[in-house]
């Protein structure tokens, strides 16, 4: 599917060639630099882990990292995504989950799951900077990630568990 989109973009000759580094791999795409990064990730590269929720940086479902910092990929033009991009698909493997993914499983955080890729990416970014976050640190980091299923108490518990797991791995 991703290849079809890529081929169509090339045929239409509407965009500009650019190279993105996503989850440690290089991808050559041809896209309008104003295209939202999320579109490029999902439709041109085939990374469907990041989700579309609102398209205006108001829900957090599309959160990915650029050079380790969380960004709402629905609102960042792909032409401005000049660093290494990490999606939910690049933080762990089935055999070696990221501590945040492990904690999410152990706490059974997800309900419908739609917001969770974004929640996890924000939590990873928080723990990269604050190893042992307080409740306030968690509230301050996660306020832009909405969950319509109301999994917030489990998210908080899982972030605290992830902090312990991550420190234990170091």
């Amino acid at each position: 599917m991703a290849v079809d989109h890529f081929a169509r973009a090339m045929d239409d000759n509407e965009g500009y060639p650019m190279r993105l580094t996503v989850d440690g791999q290089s991808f050559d795409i041809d896209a309008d630099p104003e295209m939202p990064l999320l579109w490029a990730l999902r439709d041109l590269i085939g990374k469907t882990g990041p989700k579309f929720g609102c398209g205006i940086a108001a829900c957090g479902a599309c959160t990915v990292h650029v050079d380790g910092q969380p960004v709402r990929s629905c609102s960042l033009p792909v032409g401005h995504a000049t660093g290494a991009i990490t999606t939910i698909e690049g933080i762990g493997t089935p055999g070696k989950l990221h501590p945040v993914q492990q904690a999410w499983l152990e706490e059974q955080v997800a309900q419908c799951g739609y917001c969770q890729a974004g929640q996890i990416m924000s939590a990873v970014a928080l723990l990269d900077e604050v190893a042992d976050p307080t409740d306030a640190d968690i509230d301050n980091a996660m306020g832009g990630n909405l969950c319509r299923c109301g999994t917030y108490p489990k998210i908080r518990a899982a972030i605290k568990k992830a902090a312990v797991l991550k420190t234990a791995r170091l």
Partner: protein
Amino acid sequence: MTKLLIILTSVATLLSAALFATAQESQTPAPMAVDTAKGLPEWDKIYAVFSHPRCADCHVADDRPRWSGAHYGGTRVHAFNIQRGADGSGFGNPGLRCTTCHFASNSSALHGPPGAENWHLAPTEMVWFGKSSAEICAQIKDRNRNGDRSLEDVALHVRDDKLVAWGWAPGADREPAPGSAEATYQAIENWMAAGAPCPLTQ
């Protein structure tokens, strides 16, 4: 005789010191005359910009940027628990920086986030939100509360800074700050030339 000599020498020393002081005073530029008739209308133009929501919403006394102005129909704190940042930097908190959503340019999506390089809150000592004209005027002349800038530096900052420039080009249906960067720079220059008077009333 010795006493007379000492007295004469002391008088001569005092006289020469007084003459030196007079010569020095004549070289010190006279303090700039303050022309309130010319200066205050220029200040009013500057105040209209500084107090405009596009500028004042991020010059707040507390840790939360505001959403206010005609576009919002009222004053609210920025949604999503957005804050200055525990480190006081103005760039937000770990996991949720201003630049998580505000990029180098305005989003073209309906109700998408505005953007400009270096998006952040002004330091706490530079409070404009809810302040009177006299209060902002006194503040902008105080190096402890204006980022340690001369007034000339303030004028250049207003003219050249990209985040400040966003106030006049906020995108979508947001109301821009009045005038332009260049016109505000010129108003500051004119205000300085008139002795930088401030309104008296609070």
